[in-house]
């Protein structure tokens, strides 16, 4: 009887059967990366104008758009609260805006169930720009034209950053679901 070569059913992780992913890793990676992204801009010193795009929000948006159904609908509130601790915004602004984002993306998804990368980029860019404007309005400072102009580079960075973040999240998703355990 002819037999298969030993490596025929294997991929780069090893045999393709009897393998399982780690449940802890599969469930924790999105939350940990979103929280780290919220924390990262805290460590930079920007004295003249907002220098970095809202990284925490972009990663949150990226996970939501690329992996629909992974984050529960209510997750905007706790993750937003964590972001508020480090963003310098009045506490509650990200809780509000991230919750609204979850609802809006859900509505967009029921309207356009099939999407491609370009449409995702468009959605994320529009979302990020609206978020930056809303965050400026809720920041508690005196609104002025100068303040609004200072957010323009931030918006451009946010738009340009999304494709890179999308690749990063895709890689993290592969890591999240990579097989760690041999069953039996």
């Amino acid at each position: 009887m002819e037999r298969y070569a030993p490596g025929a059913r294997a991929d780069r992780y090893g045999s393709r059967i009897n393998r399982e992913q780690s449940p802890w890793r599969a469930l924790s990676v999105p939350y940990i990366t979103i929280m780290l992204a919220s924390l990262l801009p805290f460590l930079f010193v920007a004295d003249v104008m907002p220098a970095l795009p809202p990284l925490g929000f972009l990663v949150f948006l990226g996970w939501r758009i690329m992996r629909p159904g992974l984050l529960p609908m209510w997750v905007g509130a706790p993750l937003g609260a964590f972001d508020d601790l480090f963003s310098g915004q009045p506490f509650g602004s990200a809780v509000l805006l991230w919750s609204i984002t979850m609802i809006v993306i859900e509505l967009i998804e029921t309207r356009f169930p099939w999407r491609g990368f370009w449409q995702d980029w468009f959605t994320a860019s529009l979302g990020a720009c609206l978020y930056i404007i809303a965050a400026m309005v809720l920041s508690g400072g005196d609104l002025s034209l100068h303040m609004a102009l200072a957010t323009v580079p931030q918006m451009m960075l946010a738009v340009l950053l999304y494709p890179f973040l999308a690749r990063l999240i895709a890689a993290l998703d592969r890591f999240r679901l990579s097989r760690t355990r041999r069953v039996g």
Partner: protein
Amino acid sequence: MAPPSSRRSGFSKKAQYSVFTGYLFAAFGALIGLALLALSFWQPRAMAPLRGGAHDIVSPAGEATASVRAGTGNVFDTIAAYWNAGAQNAALREEVELARIRLAEAKSVEAENERLKSLLALAEGEIAPVATTRLIGSSSTSSRRFAYLGVGRVDGITIGMPVRSARGVVGRVLEVARGSSRVLLLTDSESVLPVRRAQDNTVAFAEGRGDGLLRIRLINLGLNPLKQGDVFVTSGAGGYYRPGVAVAILTEITPDGGYARLIAEPSATDFVSVEPIYEPAATAASRTPVTQRIADQVESAGN
């Protein structure tokens, strides 16, 4: 990609309910956010302990990145210095000659100063800083301009203390936690600082504009005496900052003052020092309601 088919509710009552519950929870989260936001605007200090605790936890990471930031800054400076070493050498020689002359002049001025001071019997003590530290982070994604320090209540920091670098004023302490504190930078749109022109007593307010420049507003309106390149220093009014610390250089003139650039840019500074409030009695008086006597307030603040 399309959403997983399990999330299409179809005719299943259970699936329809779960979708509805999801929307309900998200809307509830948004309402909580709105309530918290209203609380933050009504009582800005309400959430300070929570925020301060979080900052205490991450401040070691901030210290580490701050030292790395200082290190890389020096590396880039070193590389840049190689490019124009020759021309710089000649320019520096000339500058040293001039500096020697100026130094001699300064010595004579110093001597005269000493004599006049002794005539006035004026005792001038150097203000010892409460703490010397690094900026560990900032609100780099927000439209507000805050920076964070790795020192807090245990180091003797209190709200209102001025923060300065070797070059000039950086900002003022806004919130204090156990081991970290939040600083309102001069460039924030809520920051107002009483200043005067260095060479005379033209008094003005320096307000943050939100995009990195300061707006200089003259108090005495009329003919605008300012010129480009004028240096503004703290006037000491208000009692928080001691007078005579550099703040900004005027770059653009407007009818009621001008726009000025910061002298002490926080991102370029290595170490900052937190100084005690210049005149605590004056700041306590400014916070006292008119119905209350100032002496009571100062006593209670002292306790």
